[in-house]
Structures are given as C-alpha cells and as structure tokens.
C-alpha cells in the first residue's frame, strides 16, 4: 500500500519537474550575465612581458638618444691628452695648449692667436674661429695663417703635423669647434716652401674637418618623436555610423642604414564601431518570429608598433610596413536586439484575442579591463610625407592597419585607416 503510494508520488514529481517550464528564462539569463563570463586573470605573464618590452624600448631609446651627444665630448679628451703629452715632452707643445684654452674664452668672436715657443721655437699661429651657434655644427675656418720657424729639429719632429681640436664651449656660447694646425718647418718665417706647405696643409685640414662635421650629423642613430592620430575603424561585418577615433603616443626611429629606419613606439588609441554580424544575425525566438542584433564596441588600447621605413625621396619621404601588438586597457561591448518582424508573439499569449506583444531580450553588455593582449594584432602600412621644420620634421602619414586575427579569438577584430601627424625631433637636414 505504502509502496504503491510512494511510487505514484515519485512518478508524479518526476513528471511535473522534468517537464517544468520556467517563464523567467530571460530574467535568469540577465542575472547570469552579471557573473559570466568571469574576468580572465590567467594571463598576468603576458601583461608582464608586454610591460617589460615597452620598458626596454623606452630605455633603449633614451640610451641611444643620450649617446648621440657623445661625439663632441669624445674629441675633447683626445686633444687634451695630446696637448698634455706634448707639454710634458717639450715646452714647444705649450704653444698649442694656450691657443685651445683661449678659444674657449674668445669663442663668439673671430680671434687671432699668436703663440711662440719658449724654447726658441719661433712660431706664429694665426687662426680665426667662427663660433657655431646652430645644431648643424658646421665648421667654417675662415683663415689659417701660420708660420713656424723651427730652430730645434728634435723638438719639431715631436710636434704632430696636424692636431684637430674641438672645443665645446660653455652653455651660453654653445658649441665652438676649432682646428689648430702646427706645421713644422725647417726654414724661417716667410720661406716660400713653407708657404706652399701651408697651402697644402690648409687643404688637408679642410678635407679632414668637413667630413668630421658630417660624421657628427650622421652619427645620430635614434630620432624621438611624438604623434597624434585620427582614424576610422572598420570591421569585417557591416559597419554603420562609425565615429572618428583618436590616439597618440611617442615614437622612436632607429637608423639601420642610409634610407632605412626601424620605427617603434608606444601609443594609446581609442577604437569604437557599430557593426552588424554578417553571420547568424537572425535568430528565431519561436517559430516564424525573428529578431536580429547589432554590436557596439568601445575599446581603449595600448599599442606597440614595429615597422621598417624606407626612404623614397631625398627629402626623406618614406614607405613603411610592419605590425602592431595591442594590450586592451578597456573593452566595452553591447549587443542590442531589434525585431525583424516588428511584432513578435509571446509564447503563451493567446493569439485568438488579438493580443500581441513585443518580445526582445535585454542588451548583452560585456565589460573587461586589462583582459586581452594580442601580439601581432594588425599589419601596418603607411606612407610618410616629410616637411623639415628647422632641425626637426613634421610628417603627414596616411596609414592602414589591417587585422591579422579574426574570428573567435578576437571578437572585435577591427582595422583602422586614417592619418598620423608626427613631429620628429632632430631629424631635419
């Protein structure tokens, strides 16, 4: 008796609850979406590596930039060492050292320096130094007149034929470079053969000094800059009413060879788009009733571009190609539903009474912070039109970023096309 009763009760409960129809599935789904998907914190290592890469780039760029200033400083100790050696060896060398020292004082004006050997070496060095006040540091030696009457061949033999001297002046006077040449001569002042040698020496000096100035300019390997961008985002699916987005950051161009640079940097970019999925747009809720959806994506990314720039004109216009990696600072996605048939029947609503109603799911909203990191996010192509501005450059750079990863791995695999405005320090000619 009891067993039969229990069996009937069990069967009834099973029958009722196995076929239970919940009417609040939409509300339940909305609640579930508050918890799902959970924030993905499983990839801190990727963020760590991204930070390390960005930090190394900044440090390397700064180091290169600082080392660009070393050529001037590198020459000075060399001269000091040479003059010191001569001072120690023979008093005749003293005729050069004071000249260099006086140049640092005279600096802004043309100067004529005369020096004579205290040990019987009669020499006269007349030199004009033009102070250089610009970054180009072009050296102009207006005249070098010299006559050395060497009465002591032993001492004279120890004096170098030519000593280039570069003097870096005080901050107020900026940079001054000078060349002092001592040419030994066995004859007294006014000797015709000495004059010929002087002329040859002048040419040799000019030949040597001019390349040195050029070498200094070309020795700059890294050019830092800043940039701002304005662009549209595009998507594989149909895009509508897209706003203009903006971004900006810092850049570093590393000269690899003449006309070829490796360009990198770090930038923050805003990306947003409204797009309609091309697949599975229409999902039937119930038979013969349909709704569709569109997505709105708003993203803030930290991007690390790496590209090669090849000059195509003498002015420095270039073509560039490379790729960008991106760390997503914020991601906001909203899926909004809309009716296709305008009027949709509720499942349990009697149609006979003419009662109709809309049924649309609530918006799906997904928000993430520091959740996504994509290496090689896009293929970057650009063309730079360069305008020198003093010693710097302004570059107008149309660009296209075409996304590599599309599909499930990157739900909003967007590209962008627009214009960069770059300002590069110290790269003008």
């Amino acid at each position: 008796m009891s067993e039969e009763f229990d069996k009937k009760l069990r069967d009834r409960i099973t029958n009722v609850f196995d076929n239970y129809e919940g009417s609040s599935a939409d509300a339940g789904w909305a609640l579930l979406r508050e918890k799902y998907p959970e924030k993905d914190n499983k990839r801190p290592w990727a963020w760590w590596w991204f930070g390390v890469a960005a930090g190394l780039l900044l440090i390397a760029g700064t180091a290169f930039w600082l080392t660009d200033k070393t050529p001037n400083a590198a020459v000075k100790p060399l001269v000091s060492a040479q003059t010191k050696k001569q001072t120690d060896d023979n008093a005749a060398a003293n005729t050069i050292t004071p000249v260099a020292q006086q140049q640092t004082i005279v600096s802004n004006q043309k100067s004529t320096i005369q020096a004579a050997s205290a040990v019987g070496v009669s020499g006269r060095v007349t030199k004009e130094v033009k102070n250089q006040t610009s970054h180009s540091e072009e050296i102009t030696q207006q005249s070098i007149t010299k006559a050395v009457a060497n009465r002591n061949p032993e001492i004279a033999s120890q004096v170098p034929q030519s000593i280039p001297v570069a003097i870096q002046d005080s901050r107020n006077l900026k940079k001054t470079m000078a060349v002092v040449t001592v040419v030994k001569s066995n004859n007294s002042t006014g000797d015709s053969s000495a004059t010929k040698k002087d002329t040859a020496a002048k040419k040799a000096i000019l030949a040597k000094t001019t390349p040195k100035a050029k070498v200094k300019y070309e020795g700059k390997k890294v050019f830092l800059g800043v940039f701002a961008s304005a662009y549209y985002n595009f998507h594989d699916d149909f895009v509508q009413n897209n706003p203009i987005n903006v971004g900006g950051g810092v850049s570093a161009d590393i000269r690899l060879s003449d006309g070829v640079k490796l360009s990198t940097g770090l930038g923050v970019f805003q990306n947003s788009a409204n797009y309609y999925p091309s697949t599975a747009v229409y999902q039937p809720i119930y038979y013969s009733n349909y709704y569709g959806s569109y997505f709105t994506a708003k993203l803030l990314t930290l991007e690390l571009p790496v590209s090669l720039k090849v000059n195509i004109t003498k002015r420095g216009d270039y073509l560039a190609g490379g790729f960008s990696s991106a760390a997503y600072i914020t991601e906001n996605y909203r899926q909004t539903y809309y009716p296709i048939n305008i009027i949709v029947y509720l499942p349990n609503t009697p149609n006979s009474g003419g009662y109709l109603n809309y049924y649309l799911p609530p918006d799906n909203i997904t928000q993430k912070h520091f959740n996504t990191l994509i290496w090689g996010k896009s293929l970057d192509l650009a063309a730079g039109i360069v305008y020198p501005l003093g010693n710097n450059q302004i570059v107008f750079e149309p660009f296209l970023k075409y996304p590599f990863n599309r599909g499930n791995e990157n739900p909003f695999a967007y590209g962008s096309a627009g214009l960069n405005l770059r300002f590069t320090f110290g790269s003008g000619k």
Partner: protein
Amino acid sequence: MQLPPGITEQGLIRQCKNGDLKYLEMLYKHFYGYAMGIGLRYSNNRDDALEVVNDAFIKAFGEIKTFDAEKPFKPWLRRIVVNTAIDKQRKEKKHAWDVDLAHAEDIGKQASAIEQLNAADILKLMDRLPQAQRMVFNLYEIDGYNHDEIAAMLGITASSSRVYLGRAKEKLREAIRHEEKQQ
C-alpha cells in the same frame, strides 16, 4: 524554449564549445525549465533555486568543452545542478538535520489526489520537510542516487540517509492523507 528550426541539441552543444555567447544563451534558455525544476526541489524559495541554476550553468559553460556532444545533455546537467544545490546548502549551513516534520499546511484544494498535484503543490509539501529529509528524498526517489552515494554527498552515514528517507516519505504520506480527509 524550443530550438530554432535546423538546430539540434547536439549541434547547439558543439557551437557552445566555441564559447559563443549567443549559443550559450540559446542553450541556457532551452534547458532553463528543466534545470529550474531540479533547483526548485532542492531550494527553499525561487530566488535560491535561480541562484543554484545559474551557478550550475556557469559550471556547465566552463566544462562544456569536455562534454561529449553525442551523449544526452540532460543527465549531465542534472548532476551539475544537484551538486551545485548541495554545495550551496553546505556553504550556507542550512542543514536542519534534527528538525522533525510538522504537519503540512494547506496544500491546495485540488491536491486531493496525487495525480492532481502540480509543481506548486509539490513544493509546498517539500517546504515542510526538514532540509536533510528533503534532500535525501529528492536524491533517492527522484534523482536516483543510492544511500552510499547520498551519504558521501551529504557527509552523513548511509543508515542516516535511510532514516531520513523513511521519515520524509512518511511525512509526505501523512500530509497528503490529511488533505484528502479535509476534502
């Protein structure tokens, strides 16, 4: 919710393995009623049941990549919902293992026969059971676990499980007969 034409349960589950939200939503809504029916039997109220169901679906979404789409989905989901309900009870320490059953209150005028019991009537009956008896009754009678399994799941002995089941069934019989007499 019925599945759209051309989409089978197996096909839907395969799509869900990719983690696509729109297919997960479809799966959720398709099996929501079934899961809610289980959750309600193990919970004291509807809100608790919904929480159990959603937690169970989140677990299911996380594990669905390992699920064999050729096998029936319902038994797998049922196990997840039941385990989630038990975990929730354990966390909230709502076990009232020693509380005896009071007389069932009004079940409903139409509940004079077992065949006429609806979901609300059954839940009213179950609400009057102590939590331990309710869980053992559901696990054994409805969901098909044996006493050893129930003992392991609830952290009690198998003999205690038998006692709880006997008491639960007796109280339910008593409550239903009481209602029949009143009619």
